[in-house]
């Protein structure tokens, strides 16, 4: 493996950690259901970037691409179902804030 690939992998790793931090911060700080989904999307982008960078560094881009495609499909599934649930919650509570969803509280 060349030094260039290792350097690039290392740099991509730093950005993956930064994106994970941004995504987790968004999920933890916000009360808005759509913003929680956006945070989840940022997390998925971090993972996709990591998989592709590792595939490039190890010269195994074929496997990395097939895994990245799988991640993207799962991402779309999660967003589509979550969007349907968010719309239903909005219709029931007339709000997108998690503070107003209290029916499941024990």
């Amino acid at each position, binding site marked *: 493996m060349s030094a260039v690939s290792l350097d690039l992998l290392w740099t991509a790793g730093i950005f993956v*950690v*930064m994106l994970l931090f941004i995504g987790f911060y968004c999920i933890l700080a916000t009360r808005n259901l*759509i913003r929680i989904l956006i945070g989840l999307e940022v997390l998925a982008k971090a993972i996709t970037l990591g998989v592709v960078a590792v595939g490039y560094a190890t010269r*195994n*881009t074929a496997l990395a691409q097939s895994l990245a495609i799988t991640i993207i499909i799962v991402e779309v599934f999660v967003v589509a179902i979550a969007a*349907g649930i968010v719309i239903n919650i*909005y219709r029931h509570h007339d709000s997108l804030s998690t503070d107003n969803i209290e029916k499941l509280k024990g």
Partner: protein
Amino acid sequence: MTWSIDIVLMMILAVAALWAVMATRLIHAALGLAFASVVLAVVMFRLGSPYAAVIELSVCAGLITAIFISVISLAKHESVAEIEARMKRRWKKYAPLPVAAAILGIVLATLARHPRSMPQPLAEADVRRVFWHFRQVDLLGQIILVLVGAFGIVVLFKSWRKK
């Protein structure tokens, strides 16, 4: 030197993600996320993953943005006063985020050491061969997910229409 472009692109990706998280209006956040997807697709293309890049571009930057905009348009529109009140609260909550993300990146870049050795790379294979012949369980899972997703959306929207 060749990968300095990739570093710039990844910086733009991080800034776009920050914009998506910090934008006051939801529609701006969705557009920021779409821009992040476009930049990620360019990075993926440059890192030798063109097939995945095309799917990222069409699905994440296209379909998911369309889903987000549909959901946002179904929610109620806020008045200017409501947006201004929310902006003050949001800046207080999200002001530390860019600073903390930048500090995290700088600390990681300076403190950590580069890996000296990695596992030997596998033989380069064609992505179509890997995808259709060696990852068949993944493929089956993806087909099931797409069908379940379509069924789930039909059920969710059907129950809403009845009400």
